[in-house]
């Protein structure tokens, strides 16, 4: 073995034995530094004959390159070792909870509003609105309910004095609207047929128990043109309810009823199964009333300035809160309006839960957190 080889082997051993960056650097300086063993060896080349110089020089340079590579390799290994030791000390308990954040909620009434709008938009209905405080013309008279009409007794009306400077007069007072039907008249006043609107909104009646609150929400529908029939009314509501409840088949029953503003009038029931704990829509033998409807009464068309001999159509009204209760299994209407954060968290919808007929009406927001 030549000297060079033994020097090389000795240095490699030193490299291998270096256990930290400082020791490795000392080895490097001792071997490759200005006065290092290899450097010194190269210095001796000048005094050698040419041939020997070339041969040895080549040999030493190969060894030098080899050692440099070894040192670099060792340096990286030491760095990794050092980092690993450091990381070992940086352990945290990842089972700890994240920083607190609250996922907000959309109220069921807002959610169902969006669903209803999405469905009726497909059928060409616009969304109309009217004021919550109404005059009696729009809330009653124009809807074929003159002042002494017994149907006014059906609705416990809230009144507001229309003139603070005078004593309250029931006949001229304003009312807080008992239904959204007044929007029918306001729409007809502004727009000529064909008309297709829904009018969702707040409605008010003086009633308070498990199924009645002094405020609730209705959606009104109105279609006026020259040829819409009661068969179209049935089809429209049938399509709406199947889409809304997201079921393929839904037993639906139309019963004759009475509303002053429609003739003929009907109430609509859907088939369901009531058990002690659940209500399953679309199955079973029980009936649940979900809405009222009918063909618009000629007197209502006249009050809206539309000729009933030329035009005809239908109207319907449903409780938005009631639809929400049925679809989402919410047992008590009163709880809708109590701002109980536990209730909102449970029955509310996630912020990303938008409704559309393309992505589906519900369950779009991911899992509630």
């Amino acid at each position: 073995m030549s000297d060079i080889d033994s020097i090389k082997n000795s240095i490699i051993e030193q490299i291998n034995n270096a256990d930290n960056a400082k020791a490795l650097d000392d080895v490097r300086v001792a071997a490759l530094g200005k006065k290092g063993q290899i450097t010194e060896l190269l210095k001796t080349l000048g005094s050698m004959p040419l041939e020997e110089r070339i041969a040895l020089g080549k040999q030493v340079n190969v060894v030098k390159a080899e050692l440099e590579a070894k040192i670099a390799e060792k340096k990286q290994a030491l760095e990794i070792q050092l980092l690993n030791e450091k990381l070992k000390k940086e352990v945290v308990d990842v089972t700890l909870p994240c920083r607190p954040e609250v996922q907000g909620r959309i109220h069921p009434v807002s959610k169902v509003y969006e669903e209803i709008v999405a469905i009726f938009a497909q059928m060409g209905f616009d969304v109309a609105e009217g004021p919550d405080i109404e005059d009696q013309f729009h809330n009653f008279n124009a809807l074929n309910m003159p002042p002494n009409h017994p149907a006014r007794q059906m609705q416990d009306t809230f009144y507001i004095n229309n003139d603070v400077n005078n004593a309250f007069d029931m006949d001229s007072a304003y009312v807080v609207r008992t239904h959204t039907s007044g929007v029918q008249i306001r729409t007809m006043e502004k727009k000529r047929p064909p008309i297709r609107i829904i009018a969702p909104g707040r409605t008010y009646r003086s009633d308070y128990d498990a199924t009645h609150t002094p405020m609730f929400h209705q959606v009104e529908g109105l279609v006026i043109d020259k040829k819409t029939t009661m068969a179209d009314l049935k089809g429209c509501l049938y399509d709406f309810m199947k889409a809304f409840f997201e079921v393929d088949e839904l037993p639906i029953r139309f019963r004759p009823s009475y509303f002053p503003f429609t003739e003929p009038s009907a109430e609509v029931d859907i088939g369901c199964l009531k058990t002690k704990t659940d209500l399953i829509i679309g199955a079973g033998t029980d009936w649940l009333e979900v809405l009222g409807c009918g063909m618009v009464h000629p007197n209502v068309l006249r009050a809206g300035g539309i000729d009933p001999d030329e035009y005809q159509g239908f109207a319907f009204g449903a409780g938005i809160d009631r639809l929400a209760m049925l679809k989402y299994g919410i047992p008590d209407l009163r709880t809708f309006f109590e701002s109980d954060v536990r209730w909102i968290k449970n029955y509310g919808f996630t912020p990303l839960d938008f409704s559309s007929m393309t992505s589906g009406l519900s369950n779009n927001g991911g899992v509630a957190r």
Partner: protein
Amino acid sequence: MKFTLSWLKEHLDTNASVDEISETLTRIGLEVEEVINPAAALHDFITAKIEKVEMHPDSDHLHVLAVNTGKETLQVVCGAPNVHEGLIGIYAPTGALIPAYGERLKVAKIRGVESMGMMCSEKELMVGNDHSGIIELPTDTAIGMSAADVLNIDPVIEVSITPNRAECLGVRGIARDLAASGLGKLKPLNIPEIKGSFKSPITVSVDCPDACPTYTARYIKGVNNKAETPKWMKDRLTAIGLRPISALVDITNYINYDLARPLHVFDADKLKGNIKVRMAHNGEEFLALNEKSYTLDDKCLGICDDEGVQCLGGIMGGLNKGSYEDTTDVLLECALFTPTCIARTGRKLQLDSDSRARYERWVDPMSNISGNNYATKMILDICGGEASEMEIAGAEKFEAKPVYLRPERLKTFVGMEVSKEKCEEILSHLGFTLSEEDGKIKAVSPSWRGDIECEQDLIEEVVRMIGLDNIPATSMKTADFPKPVLTPLQNNIVMVKHELASRGMFETVTFSFTDSDIAQYFRRGQEPILLQNPIVKELDEMRPSLLPNLLIGAKNNIARGYADLALFEVAPEFYGRNPGEQKAVASGIRVGKTSKKDWTGSMRAYDVFDAKADALAAIAAAKGPIEAPQITTDAPTYYHPGRSGVIRLGKNVLAYFGELHPAVLKALDIKSNVVAFEVFLDNIPQPRDAKSKAKKKLELSQLQAVDKDLAFVVARNVSAISIVAAAKNADRNNIVDVRVFDVYEGDNLPEDKKSVAISVTFQPKEKTYTDAEIEALMNKVILEVGKKTGAVLR
């Protein structure tokens, strides 16, 4: 409206079952609300005979019976006092569900003796009220028969009568509708004409035929009002929830429900002078049967004697001159009052009665004389006495305006083909008088129907008899490609809700009214808009702001232990009492802390800047200009005067935000800190509807931007926004962003000064800045901020 099956069968000849009847009622528009049929619960019960009675060895009142059920003889222990050998009663085998107890019968050992079943009382089977002993059936009753077949069971049906179907407030009207639907035959109603044997000593006259077109009366002397009301009548009245009172009252109640024919009976001996039907005098007092006194006006109809109003016509009798137990001479009233008068009086006095419910809808105008005869006959039959001739004021008349039906309208209006013959058949069964005119069916209403006014009414009659389920359902045709339907405001409302929810807030919906005691702090100088008839005192004012209800909600949550919360609502507030004087507002509150305490220590109390961030986020979601608005410090008085602001565009207020005033929270008894915002969605200007949806071309510099910090000392009342604005304005070409990163007041600074440190981002466009250029730009900022705000570099 309730009635029993036997009562219905009094008018309707039918073999239909209770189920068939109730299905038909609902199908033709008389919605069945409830059927109470005790027979349905009696499958397991049978007739059985007591063969042998022995005393229980260990009791002085229990007996041990041998009961023959027809199949076997069983040992039954019984405590009823009326047991005897040979008694045939109703036997409940073990396992039977006893209706009154809702429990199944088990094999039991009663004081050591085994009992295999039970002999039942009426009450236990819920077929009657008798619980004094077990049921005793006639001795010739076969044993082993179904209990439902031998017991006299009368199911009760309750229907909901719509206001247009006044005649169905009488059992006969319901029977007539069922007959027209083909479920049986209407039996004739035989009403004898009662001539009377003397002239009534009390005459009647009507001053106001508009309110009372017909008034009939009959004097009946020598009646016995102590006479027992017949059991069948008592049973029927009890079954529909009316308490039997005395024969005369029971008769009038019965006829009211039987024929929808209200009546009244005066104690003739108490009447002074003759009966005069007149409008009341303004201020005239009337003491009604309900023992309340009413002050009448000249639009109320009074049935009067010489001493004043004795009956409020068509609504309620008087307390003073009605019939009582010792009444012997009576005056029977059977009259017609017009709906408008009745409805108006009833509404004004807030007085409801069965009589009013009928008169204000429709009472058959041709039923006064016949009703009088019918009632007289019943009184004479039950109470005895002698009837006078009938006194009649006014004449009975009914002239219905004919209504025309074009049979083809069934197709074009309802979408269902119905033949002319079928239409005629249905209408004639319902009592219409028909003829033909120009191919149309000319229909004249029967006198009991006051609700038929137009062709659609006749269409409804035909359609309900055919059944709405037979109308086909056709989907709506949409000619146009579906388009977005929400208006910009409607769409903004949806977006704002989702934005606020994404910020961790819970949406709530609260009533549009609130408590005026709380609302008073939130009126912003407006007059309160009070309800005339609030349902409770705490819901008496149309809310001037959404905050009162949100705060009440917060308070209730805090009381339940949920003290840290964020609620919002998007809904109207009311600034005037006229229709339309309302604004769409998005309002929210944050209460307490951002979270409960947690290991990261991120918990902190909500402050004004949370509310400001919510408000700005809502404005942005509603497409408002969040860069442009000014922020002023003149929020309404319910906010903390020093920690609140207004986001506005000149006079146009987009939002209020801030901490709520501690005094207001104290008044509401809320001890937590609350920050709130109100965003007025109608006030937010909308971007012009640009033709192109493409965004502006984006110019990006390849050169590195430079951040430089500057700290100023400035008077405490100088707003941060003015320093930022001045800095931005110093060089709009080079400065792209200015941020406040420190605010300091206190030591080392004069009391009226504060330090505000800003970080300015300079963006070179063509080449990187030299030190001198940066220096010059910073000097520009220092100069401009100093000029605008009086700030000096710290």
